[in-house]
């Protein structure tokens, strides 16, 4: 399943890149892309565990940049 999330207060381009790398490492994520310019995250991940994966993503991102919120 593929889903797009808006991100709020994603202020640093390098953090966006870091998040993208971190999310792609999560088990079950097929492809993820964080666009700093569009302030958007798109994730393609396993259907069965999608909600679980999203929770994991939120956790990973807040570790990189605590100010940034993913609008689920």
């Amino acid at each position, binding site marked *: 399943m593929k889903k*797009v999330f808006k991100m709020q207060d994603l*202020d*640093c*381009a*390098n953090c966006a*890149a870091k998040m*993208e*790398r971190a999310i792609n490492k999560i088990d079950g994520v097929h492809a993820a*892309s964080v*666009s*700093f*310019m*569009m*302030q*958007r995250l*798109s994730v393609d991940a396993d259907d069965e565990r999608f909600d679980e994966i999203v929770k994991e993503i939120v956790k990973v991102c807040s*570790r*990189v940049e*605590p*100010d940034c919120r993913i609008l689920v």
Partner: protein
Amino acid sequence: MKGYTLSRREKKNLARILVSLALFAALFIADKIVVLGNVFQGPFAWLFPFALYLAVYLLIGYDVLWRAARNIVRGQVFDENFLMCLATLGAFALAIYRGVTGQEIEGFDEACAVLLFYQVGEFFQSYATGKSRRSISALMDIRPDYANVKRGGVVETVDPSQVQVGEVIVVNPGEKVPLDGTVIAGAASLDTKALTGESLPREVAAGGEVVSGCVNLTSQIEVRVEKTFYDSTVSKILDLVENAAEQKSKTENFITRFAKYYTPAVVIVAVLLAVVPSLVTGAWSVWVYRALSFLVVSCPCALVISIPLSFFAGIGAASRCGILIKGSNYLEKFNKARTFVFDKTGTLTKGNFAVTGVYPPENRAEILRLAAIAESDSSHPIAKSIVACYGKTPETGYTLTNIAGEGVQARRGDDEILCGNEKLMQSRGIACVRPEGAGTVVYVARGNRFVGSVLVSDEPKEESKEVLSALHGMGCRTVMLTGDNEQIAARVAAELGVSDYKASLLPQDKVAEVEKLLSEKPAKESLCFVGDGINDAPVLMRADIGIAMGGIGSDAAIEASDIVLMQDDLRGLPLAKRIAKKTMAVVFENIVFSLAVKAIILILSAVGLTNMWVAVFGDVGVAVLAILNAMRVNGDYRKKTATLPPQAAAEE
């Protein structure tokens, strides 16, 4: 800078930066005049300037310090905030060390200034990206907020997604058309600028199609809804634009990969620089200071921000000209496009076929009647022209079967009508006569007996020739693919001046032909296929870059292609090529410039030829210059079209 207002957070930051700058300037000048370190005497004289500078430091940097503390707890060692704090606090520490050991009191100003200019740089980055983001979001203005739907004689205002196909909506002057549909009452001028970049309004009247996202300029119209909001043009376009950044270019990926190694590498070198020479020479404060300068330039932000910004600006500039690009990777690839493959019908030619002859003329009415029955269900322009020429509603009740690349079979009981090209007639063993004249011949047979033929011709678009020669001027090769026979293809090819053509192709042959061209071209170059999106989705997908013409109304084309020319105008191609070229040039400049400046600062810092001031100015300065450079991409490219040679202008 019009149309962009700072967010509350940005305003707050700006105020903080201005106040800090003023305080710092006052402090700095006072320090130069009276030397704050000499105001008091004794071993703690350094405390006075330290306290003053520290106050400014905390004012400007409390958020950086806070983030650094928080991130280091989370194990983000290579966090920019942390490294910046380490550099500045280290500089403070060195200055205190100097004060305590009775050396000349200096260096507090430097620590403070580094963080101050770092913040100035951050603010500028945030401002520039925000502005650029907003100029693209202007495109998002096409999203309609509501629809006035007629239900039981009353007009209700509802969300566009609540409207069903078949319902009637009312669009008042000044409102956006919320859904695709057909006008059933009234006439109006529609502004399609947001969709196509075309500034001339489009006139619609009863029976005409309207596309969602247009703005009604003149008077009220009633529209029968043909597509749900989700399937409407406006949703498709918004989807495309919003997902544009998902497809990242190789350059962007290279930069983020580079950034991944850059920061740790610089930090490791900084640690070595602080420790190794100090152990040898014993001059700890000298080498620690040089290492701290390294940390100041350890943030790869200038690069990481300016590259996507350049691409984003390129995509934005293109979309303002009615060219939608689905991702920065396509912009990158398009710059390398050296082969342009065109579908003939509807792309190089108008595709508004007209029947120019019926043979034998005495059977005209009957031939057209039969042909219209067979072609009644097809969306192919040739079929449409025959039905249009027939003028009446074709008889129904026939089962229509499409025979790929040959024609159509219409059957009702024993009655069989065949309508198609020479191949169809040959495969059925029907003898046919080819009429005189250039164009596409549609042969009509009934019950395996030849009845007659219809001659249909098409004319080239006005701009085709100009665009092809412009592409040739850019060093590109052009190939025309067509299902028409050799004779017609040769004539059109000569008329337009394409480099090469392939005739008599079945739809599946076009894919094979494109694959052949793909294997022939050098790996570094890319191949574009330009089509009108009707029946050529497989080719659009197979090509390196699929370009669909006249995106409005053809959602299949929008989905299958990588670049959409919203206006049915080929001049978008050289325009897009110029934008791609400019974008890639700016991207290249930014990479080289940023890397070069960082490298120079690193080397100068290592050998002690520079100080932290220069390092922070270099770092922030590079970021600002790279961003300004990226914004150059975001110009108006159509103005330059107006300054074409007078000859081209005269042709228009």
